């Protein structure tokens, strides 16, 4: 449930201003209260958080340095699990699949969301709240339910194949197949489910951004004779840089963390066709007894997500200044 908020810590200017506003040292806190009381308020949250998130993370990093089946004593192997994660063909394939899924989860939904926002922003649209509510709905449904539903939709007797067989009856080639069981098509099929889920998130983010773009910019563009496309490229797109960064961050994280869908819809199959790192964390721990390797994969996922979050943050801030 990572919501990749990426705020910067209070800037020095902000801090200085706060200190000045309150007349300097100590004046910020309520009168007569010891400073330490802040710790009392923060401590309960901090303890649960440290015990059940930070500690497991460190513990996982420690596991990742061992060859361990989860039962017998492990053997220290240093960083070899990490080199294995990046050299083993199946695991390397899994990371490559994750990159393919980033295109489906992040790039395609953002492109579609831009089209939707362009359609919503140029003239007044009736029922905007309705469209927004409906388009965001796939975000809300449990991924498990999404997986079960799409398994039926892609199944040999499902609605997609019904349509394709009907088209075949009209003289087109027979394109029907069990999409999730097809070596070539399983990964794109899974990817399209991700696209379906993420469009709404990107759209909602962009819509919020568009509302902050000054109307005068649009009026100026229209006076200059810009059509819908020019107007979008010159006004809307630049105005949405921040929202685009956030949308890409959140959807890429969703692509990297896509366990439920793979576990339920394909179990990584057929063959290794839809194996992804998140699935391999589970698979290597509980099916093949490679706990150290699984931990290393988990840490790599965390590092990739953290790096991506930071890079996107840099990109946004770098151009703001």
């Amino acid at each position, binding site marked *: 449930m990572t919501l990749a908020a990426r705020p910067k810590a209070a800037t020095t200017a902000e801090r200085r201003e706060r200190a000045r506003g309150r007349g300097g040292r100590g004046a910020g806190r309520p009168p*007569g209260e010891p400073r330490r009381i802040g710790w009392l308020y923060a401590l309960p949250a901090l303890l649960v958080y440290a015990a059940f998130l930070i500690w497991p993370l460190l513990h996982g990093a420690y596991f990742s340095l061992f060859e361990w089946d989860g039962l017998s004593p492990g053997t220290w192997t240093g960083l070899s699990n990490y080199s294995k994660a990046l050299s083993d063909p199946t695991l390397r394939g899994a990371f490559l699949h994750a990159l393919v899924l980033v295109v489906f989860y992040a790039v395609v939904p953002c492109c579609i969301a831009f089209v939707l926002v362009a359609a919503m922003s140029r003239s007044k649209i009736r029922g905007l709240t309705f469209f927004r509510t409906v388009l965001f709905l796939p975000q809300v449904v449990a991924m498990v339910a999404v997986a079960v539903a799409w398994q039926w939709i892609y199944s040999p007797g499902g609605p997609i194949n019904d349509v394709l067989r009907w088209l075949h009856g009209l003289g087109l080639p027979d394109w029907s197949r069990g999409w999730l069981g097809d070596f070539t098509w399983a990964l794109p099929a899974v990817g399209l489910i991700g696209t379906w889920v993420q469009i709404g998130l990107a759209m909602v983010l962009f819509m919020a951004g568009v509302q902050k773009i000054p109307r005068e910019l649009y009026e100026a563009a229209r006076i200059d004779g810009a059509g819908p496309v020019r107007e979008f490229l010159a006004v809307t797109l630049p105005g949405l840089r921040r929202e685009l960064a956030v949308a890409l961050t959140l959807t890429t994280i969703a692509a990297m963390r896509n366990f439920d869908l793979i576990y339920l819809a394909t179990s990584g199959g057929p063959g290794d066709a839809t194996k992804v790192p998140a699935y391999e964390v589970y698979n290597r721990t509980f099916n093949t007894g490679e706990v150290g390797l699984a931990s290393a994969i988990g840490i790599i996922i965390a590092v990739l997500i953290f790096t991506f979050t930071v890079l996107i943050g840099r990109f946004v801030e770098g151009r703001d200044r």
Partner: protein
Amino acid sequence: MIGSRREAFVNYTVLVVFSAIAVLPMIGVVFQALEGTELNVSNFTDAWEQGHFADYLRNSVIVTVAVVLTATLLSIMAGYALGTMEFRGAGAVFLLFLAGLTIPTEAVVVPLYFDLRSLGLDNTLIGLILPQIAQSVAFGTFWMRAYFRSVPRALPEAARIDGASSWTTLWRVLVPGGRPAILTMVVLISMWTWNEFLLPLVIINSDEGLRTAPLGLSFFQGTHQTAYPLLMAGALIIAAPIVIVYVFLQRHFIAGMLSGAIKE
């Protein structure tokens, strides 16, 4: 308006097409669960009984309520401290919570399994609740801190001058004013907790009676591979509670996603 009639037509077409893409699969699922032609709820009753969904929903309700109540309380307190008080180490604590927002379940689930097992907390609801509180307070603290920082200083100061303790100030003055922010946080944490799958899968690995709704659906699917009407009924049963909440509180879902992601 410059937008011509043709352009308006294109705009509405785009919106209607993508809205249809968003809901048609779900409508298909509903029809499949009702077996198409006439209204047939037997799939729901069958799924409900064969799939033990009453038990799974009860477990999910227990876990979600426990996580939401505890995480909300802890987040309000921690957010209050980090947002209004200046104490030594506050900056470091905030950064620590912030880092937690990027830690994926995938990176902690394996060690959590072994840690909880050695504590005897695997196959218990408490073993499921505690890690989810931890994930939720990272977001909650960040979220509540932003709210407490947005409150004008004069408000708590006036309360303090009237002799209220910091505890009273928090609950009598600041929390009532923060109801929208708190509701939004509650809605998001509920959704994430209800929909969580990997954690229950790993922690509730043998006690079938403790499965949560999403986990129950996955096992139901295991035993009814291609009995699609039954499966679709099961999927609707586990998705419905949060979808109903969404329809009524969609503003809060969307506002939460937006400011959670963009603020500051």
